[in-house]
């Protein structure tokens, strides 16, 4: 049985979708899961823009999703210091600071998060994010005041599915085969939209491949996202034809 994932980042791009002031196009791509030569799942997934765009506000560049042949690693929660809210893994338990529990809402300053050791540490001290900002973000995404029980703000969602160029074809990541900077993941915004039953508003990424959370769940159930799975990311100008 042969299985592989194919991603066509420019599948839904149109000439009319050129980003003003650039020659780059945006829009959705198509992810196809093929089993024994048959497409068993197709879903929209949004990669990067077709050409690099510098963020006029000074943020990270928007780069195209790298094309080529890759091999997947197993899904795992992702953490990075590059993005403010992604410094804590999705699902990490959080709670009010016990000494602040009876204070007025806006007098509370901090939130604790649970370390892997089981001890609790300060989000404010470790990451510079105070309780007000966490509560605002929670309200922004979920329209609920207060703070959630777990960290649900990581920009990469509950798990990221990373991949690498398998230079020697052994389906294992060797020392000279680093993980690609691009990866499959959902977004905190899309996870919230799914939870609230809203329309999923997919957006182009900085180079990763944004999955609809429902598609991630379905493809995970189909065991498409598992270590060793082949992935081909096609050029932007190639459209999928069954």
């Amino acid at each position, binding site marked *: 049985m042969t299985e592989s994932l194919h991603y066509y980042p420019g599948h839904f791009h149109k000439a009319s979708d050129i980003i003003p002031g650039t020659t780059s196009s945006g829009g959705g791509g198509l992810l196809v899961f093929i089993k024994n030569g048959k497409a068993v799942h197709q879903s929209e997934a949004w990669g990067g823009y077709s050409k690099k765009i510098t963020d006029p506000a000074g943020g990270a560049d928007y780069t195209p999703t790298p094309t080529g042949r890759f091999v997947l690693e197993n899904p795992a929660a992702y953490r990075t210091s590059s*993005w403010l809210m992604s410094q804590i893994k999705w699902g990490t338990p959080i709670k009010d600071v016990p000494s602040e529990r009876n204070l007025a809402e*806006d*007098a509370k300053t901090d939130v604790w998060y649970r370390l892997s050791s089981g001890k609790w540490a300060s989000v404010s001290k470790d990451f510079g994010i105070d309780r007000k900002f966490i509560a605002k973000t929670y309200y922004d995404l979920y329209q609920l005041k207060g703070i959630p029980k777990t960290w649900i703000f990581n920009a990469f969602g509950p798990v990221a599915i990373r991949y690498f160029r398998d230079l020697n074809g052994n389906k294992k990541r060797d020392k000279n085969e680093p993980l690609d900077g691009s990866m499959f993941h959902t977004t905190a915004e899309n996870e919230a939209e799914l939870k609230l039953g809203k329309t999923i508003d997919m957006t*182009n990424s900085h180079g990763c491949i944004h999955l609809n959370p429902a598609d991630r769940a379905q493809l995970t159930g189909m065991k498409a996202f598992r270590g060793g799975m082949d992935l081909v990311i096609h050029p932007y100008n190639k459209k999928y034809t069954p």
Partner: protein
Amino acid sequence: MINAMKVIHNILFVCFLLTVTNCVAVTGTTQHNSNPSNINHIGLFENGKLIVIGKDNKYQIGKFNGIWSKKFPLQKTGLDFVNFTLSSDKGVFLIGGLKHKSEETLVYYRGRTVLIDNDNNLINKWDYDSTFNSAELFNGDVVGSTGNNIYRLKKDGKTDLIHKRNRKTLISIVLDENGNTIICNPRTARKVNTLTSKFGCYKGSEWDFNGRWYDSTNKYHTEPVRCGKWLIEPVQNGFNKDITGLKVRDLNTGKLINERTVSGVNRFLCINNKSIIVNTSLTSYSLPDLKPAESFSCHGNEPVKSIMNFGELTACLTEQGNIGKLEAKHKK
């Protein structure tokens, strides 16, 4: 009657026994003449009285350097907490919320505003889905934004939903001179697509501009504010970075009138609709030219968190939780 006499007698007796110099008894209520401290919010009444809400969630009404009521629990007003206040000739609007539901250690909140007069009477109350992050007064009505929805709180106690958010980040509200809504939203440190999202302010379909201020932690107050005929917009170079510039726009057209660089600023406030004061140096800048005008002091030289003015009186609250009169030190 006899019981009431006993209460007054007992209070006088206790005050006498304790030889507390700042304790007097009037109509059964213990009062104090030292200014309260550890304050989170202030509101100013037309007659110069203040309402102060402490970090302990209790409030007092009184005059600066004058007589203060005893502390009342905030729950007496029907609120669990206050976010900010607005002053009007009818009283002070306490804008906050109340606990909606609890789950284990987590508590969720709904929005509530109450109008209270300087005799501690509750005059009106409004409930809505969530707490306001910004609000202004127009013709005696509070118009406020929850970040997602904008409501008008009408004098009959009803609320009108007048706008729903259509931008990526939470919205705040400013009203122009005719009560039209100007909607603003900040940039975000979250990993969202900034190319397809709008961050700035707009007034209906009349005008909009891109802004460069960020959603922030409690250290910064970065929403644009109205000051007289002007809209004051901060400039930041990133999340949790100091405000590096101030821009003055015409409130009716959104047109940029003036801008200047500033440093070490994390909050700016409007004084008497005529000038802007920055919280750290307590320097004011006249509008719309943004020229340095005066230096102020509030409880020594503590950084100012909020100011309220009514006529000639301008009360201030410092970030340390002390109250004072905002007073000009000298002309620049």
